[in-house]
């Protein structure tokens, strides 16, 4: 084992009864990495996490952690932390006792236990709340307790299932930096699940995009954002003009359309609205919709290629509904998709 394959999932297939939720998944995560699982609802993110934590035993495949095959190791012996979306704090215990729960089970000596629990509570800024019950805390504070409760155990891997989705926008930003800080300070290997691409892009070292129980693409935030390799990922990260290629031509509802420039060998091409050149180019479209978004303006064009979304600087003169505009889809800027559909 080296630090590069600290946690490995090998041919992991997970099922609930006869329903296969995750199929033949392979993934390697390095020590200290912060990885995001990104994907639409029901794609198997939670299921995969539960298998890593040991709450779900795989139908087939292996989970290896720190050089040991833990596939058959029960959840309470793995030392994998999991922060639940609902926090799952123990309602009958104070903040202090919630955080102390795991250490007490490990029969940690009293003095050390107290020191570690207090340090944990302090590190999430809840020193004054140690004696409160979970019900007497705000959502953000409960979340911090859950974080401290997992972190005092010094888990090998900390899993976070949509840790920020229950918080309001401001708290979400606070917690985001909190998570980043904890991760940097402790160097714990972290995997978090999110629906929110912004969250994944800003936090993660690496993003795993999932679709219907399989990994669609793995890459750095830059890779995922700029170089999606499939139509699915492209769509997920905001490429709104996506075309399949056939013999070097764009497949459109009205047939194949030639585009200028050397067309790469790919299954498809995709452009963000920002990448569309508006005002010049070989194509014509009529403005069907326009919306103002502060710094920019978005236009929806009716074109022979089908509907096209273009985004331009708001400082430029605006276009009326119905106006005929020339535009171009520059091939050089496009994301090249290896997989379509």
């Amino acid at each position, binding site marked *: 084992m080296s630090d590069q394959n600290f946690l490995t999932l090998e041919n992991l297939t997970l099922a609930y009864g006869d329903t296969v939720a995750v199929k033949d998944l392979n993934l390697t995560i390095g020590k200290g990495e912060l990885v995001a699982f990104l994907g639409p609802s029901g794609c198997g993110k939670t299921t995969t996490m539960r298998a890593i*934590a*040991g*709450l779900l035993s795989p139908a087939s495949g292996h989970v290896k952690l720190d050089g040991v095959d833990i596939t058959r190791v029960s*959840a*309470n*012996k*793995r030392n*994998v*932390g*999991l922060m*639940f979306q*609902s926090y*799952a*704090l*123990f*309602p*009958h215990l104070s903040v202090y006792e919630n955080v102390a*729960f*795991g250490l007490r*089970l*490990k029969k940690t000596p009293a003095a050390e236990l107290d020191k570690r629990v207090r340090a944990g509570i302090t590190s999430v800024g809840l020193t004054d709340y140690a004696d409160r019950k979970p019900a007497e805390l705000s959502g953000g504070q409960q979340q911090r307790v859950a974080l401290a*409760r997992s972190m005092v*155990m010094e888990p090998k891997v900390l899993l976070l299932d949509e840790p920020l989705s229950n918080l309001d926008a401001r708290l979400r930003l606070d917690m985001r930096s909190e998570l980043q800080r904890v991760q940097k300070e402790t160097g714990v290997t972290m995997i978090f699940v999110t629906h929110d691409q912004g969250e994944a892009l800003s936090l993660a070292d690496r993003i795993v995009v999932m679709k219907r129980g399989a990994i669609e693409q793995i890459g750095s935030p830059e890779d995922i954002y700029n170089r999606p390799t499939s139509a699915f990922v492209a769509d997920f990260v905001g490429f709104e003009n996506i075309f399949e290629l056939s013999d070097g031509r764009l497949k459109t509802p009205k047939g194949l359309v030639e585009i200028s420039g050397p067309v790469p060998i790919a299954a498809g091409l995709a452009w963000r609205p920002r990448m569309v050149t508006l005002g010049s180019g070989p194509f014509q479209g009529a403005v069907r919709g326009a919306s103002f978004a502060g710094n920019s303006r978005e236009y929806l064009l009716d074109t022979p290629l089908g509907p096209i979304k273009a985004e331009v600087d708001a400082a430029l003169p605006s276009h009326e509904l119905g106006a005929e505009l020339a535009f171009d889809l520059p091939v050089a800027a496009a994301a090249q998709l290896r997989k379509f559909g």
Partner: protein
Amino acid sequence: MMARNLFIPITLGLVIAFLIGPFLIIVAASFSAGETLAFPPQGFSLRWIAKVFTVESFRDSFFMSLFLAIGGTLAALILGIPASYALSRYKLPGAETIRTIVSAPIIVPGIIVGLSLLRYIVVPFQVGITLALFLAHTALILPYAVRVVSASLGNLRSDIEEAAVLLGSSRLGAFFRVVLPNIRGGIMSAFILGFVTSFNQVPVSLFLSGPGVRTLPVDMIAYMEIVFDPSVAALSALLAFMSIGIVFIAERFLGFSRYV
């Protein structure tokens, strides 16, 4: 307009009168100085209340009832807590059927429960009277235990058990460390409800009582067939106050009504 305004207070008044009225009559009758059970009471005395404590069979049957109420309720909880837990946490095949069977004694009239226990269990298996009463009371309380405990389990998220497991607890340990403490109120409520139900139970006990072994309510009926003095009213009043006291304490300390 006027008629409508009066309708609700009048209805409410009647309902309260029907519920509380008999109780007030019994309390009043138990302070009577007369020789027979009568209302309005003749004069005022405490002699019938004092007499309750001197009737020996009342004392025996009181302890029998107390034993059945406490023992039966404990047994029902020991069976009912795991049953409720399994019903609420696992998608068992036929869970609905199990729930219906468990609830049957609430729906089926007590006379039928008593008769069938007698006919198909007590007589063919030669079960002793005390044991038969104990089993019957356990069976009668079980549905209440399952219902009340299920209600409080329903309010408890199941992911806290997984959280406990991930912090190093075994599954069973998680049940004792995080499930039980959080349904304590429900368990206490089930205990009180079971206790009161068992203590006031007549039809089933009637069938299963035998020579020398009777529950208090059955004993009171037997007493009344022979002696028609106000001591029965006095005893009823005392028991009613006991039940009220228990429920009051429970409500005060546990928020009993949340679970029932």
